[in-house]
């Protein structure tokens, strides 16, 4: 779905600079408890803290996910996900395949359901050719804006209203300009940051 020749151009620095905030909502970091079973005992790592001994799961009840490894299962996993056949895949397919491989080889306990919101949204967008003009407002002002262009099921371009050289903060003008450039195939999506949080925060 992500084209290897993806073009990323004309990003307005201030608006695009808030990508991190948007990603915290759409793609929140998952807190994983990693447990390595070794001959000399169990070692666990969780959010910067090491724990030695049994019952690490009980020590870290707020972990979203628990993964239990041995060095052998890790080696098997690394061998599988770096096999020569993976180079044919798109990166998003590869990313998904890595987690499938992990789940197939390693006990993974999901305490909190994993929601691949970002990838689901992009996949849905990719079902037809076109451009998605996305605006996120905070109070009266444009907080974030970008345009995503899909061709043949692939994300081929990320851009923003900076390509029009002016009116980068005026949503109405952005829609006008985008509608003119991508006539008939531009979908405008506008919501507030609050609505984004309500819709996508778990």
């Amino acid at each position, binding site marked *: 779905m992500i084209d290897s020749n993806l073009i990323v151009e004309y990003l307005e620095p201030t608006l695009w*600079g*808030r990508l991190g905030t948007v990603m915290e909502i759409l793609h929140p970091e998952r807190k994983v408890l990693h447990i390595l079973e070794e001959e000399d005992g169990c070692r666990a790592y969780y959010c910067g803290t090491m724990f030695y001994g049994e019952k690490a799961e009980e020590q870290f009840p707020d972990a979203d996910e628990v993964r239990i490894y041995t060095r052998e299962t890790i080696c098997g996993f690394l061998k599988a996900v770096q096999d020569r056949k993976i*180079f044919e895949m798109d*990166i998003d397919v590869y990313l998904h395949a890595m987690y499938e491989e992990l789940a197939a080889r390693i006990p993974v306990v999901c305490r909190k359901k994993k929601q691949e919101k970002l990838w689901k949204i992009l996949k849905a967008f990719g079902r037809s050719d076109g451009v998605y003009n996305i605006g996120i407002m905070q109070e009266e002002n444009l907080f974030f804006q970008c345009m995503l262009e899909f061709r043949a099921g692939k994300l081929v371009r990320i851009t923003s209203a900076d390509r029009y050289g002016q009116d980068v903060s005026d949503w109405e003008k952005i829609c006008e300009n985008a509608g003119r450039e991508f006539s008939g195939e531009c979908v405008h999506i506008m919501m507030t940051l609050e609505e984004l949080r309500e819709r996508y925060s778990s």
Partner: protein
Amino acid sequence: MVRFGENGIIIDGREIPLYSGSVHYWRTERKHWGKILDQCRQMGFEIIETYIPWSVHETEPGIFDFGEKDERKDLEAFLSLCEQKGLWVIVRPGPHINAEMTLFGYPEWILADEEIQARTPQGTAAVYPYVTKQFAVPSYASRKLYRATEAYFWVLQPILKRHSYPDGGIVAVQADNETCYFFRDRPYVMDYADDSVRLYRHMLQEKYHTADRVSAVYGKHFSDFAQICPPTGYDKEDGYAMEYYLDWTEYKEYQILYALGRMVDIIGSMQLGLPIFHNCAYQNHTPVSVQRIERIPGLSVAGIDAYPEPQDTKMLKERIRYLAGSSRLPFVPEFGSGSWFDRGRVLSAGEEEFGYLYAFMNGLKAVNFYMLAERDRWTGAPLSCDGRVRESYWQLFSHMLDALKTHGVCYYRRSPEVLLLKNYDMGRLKACTSRMDPNTLSSNLFIQGPDFPQALFADTNVAGMEQDACGDTFAESWLLQVMETLDAMHIDYDLSDCYIDAGRLCGYRYVFAAAYRQMPEACQELLLEYAGGGEDRNLILGPSMPVENRRREECGLLDALYCRGNRIRLLREVTGQSLADCRFTAEYVVTDKRVELTVHTHPESGEQLLWLANVSGEDIACKIAFPGKRCFRAIWNCQDIEDAYASVTVAVAPYTVAVWKVVKPAK
């Protein structure tokens, strides 16, 4: 002739400041080239930097495009235009480029070639999951890679030769780019490719000469070097001596030096007559060493890149002071100006200003701002990809370059009397005692693969490591305490490690060296030479006195001098009290912990620049004490102060740097 100087770059016998910025011709519409270069000049830049990416120019094996098909790829025209505009050029032909390119600048068929790929302990390629495509990391030992690189470089040669100084505007060439295993720099991630294992055995042969000797050191019998297989992780039960693992860690360093040496040889053979430099990614630890890279014949300067987070001081202070204490020219070949698109944040002009000025304050001499013009996959530069001005960034560069050049800032010297020496071997020991090093399967914001935390594999119960409690592989508790204490005392210092030149070491009055029970003989000799060299030299070791070499054989060169008198001091515990008897000199004194101060002095005129940084989020009224009477002429973020006697109180805004030129009354 053109060469790097102590303060910048020497062209036509004149040393000019090395303040350059990046523009990518092949990613910019040709009609915008002129406008962008004019704007760069208007901002005050006299030097432009560009990569010359292999994959862009060799579109299929043996098929090249230098503007014949795509006018943006007309390298010759771009270089000619720079010359017409009066701009010098730094070129970076790779082969490693990164530049947020899908295959980091390598042609697809190069990375697909299994003879070129690095190998993991699992026998697979080492995958780099870049946001637009995963690819195989190439091996720095691959002979085929160098043959292919050389062939590409020789296609570039006629163009580069025509445009090299004195005939053209190119004044420097970078050898490769951030050569550090594509940021997968832990010892056991890679490289187990055939050519790499061959090189590893070659290094062992150079070091030990005979199989008997290496057998004795490793505690295993080998009748031939070909029988030695590299470790894939630390295993305390396998009967090998620690030297076996340390040697692999050293091999990873050797491989980088070998790779850069090969690149320098290839560039040298092109007879461009230009100085060659390298940019380290971020490391001041194994497998990278600025000083050792600078000892590669034909390579003049090794810098370290910097992409600070907003309000960062920790990374910048350590990195720049390390360069100031270690490199021939403290140079940041890539200092972030804007951000890659999948970073998640773009620094404001104010945030960038603080980082740049803070770096200059701590000893930065030369810099390339990466990028000056935006392009595919990059935003937040002072110019958009079509040459429009991004006002706040443009103003920052325009004013900053004007101030730096008007006041000749690069010709002043920050000369701290204190040097802190990291113990490079402790980093090696901690790195090599990892039970395994899985490859990193993430990159930046979008690609978050299922990574395995390195801490899971660290074997901390290893002899020698009990003396350093720091969990960070490449930091040391004792040294961190020294830094914290000196910072609290407002004492300026440089950083380096055991690869420092003896002559340079002797320029410091106080040397704090992190030392443990084991220390290589050569390192002990270096410190011994320093300590024995004069009354005004103070060597302070800690937390332990070395009494053995790395093979645990008795070697107490420093201990012998320590026992004979007071030339060496052992500092087991670091406190402000324990440093109270050091007679540090400080002409300017501040006491507020939220403020940092450095002084740069002009070597000829004796004039001073006073730099003051507020490293907090609060407005501060800061008192600066000094002997006698002074006037302070404002250079940056401050006002003139006339006839101040003994002290002055100045206001400093949060996360800003202020600079004055000090005027002392005539004697």
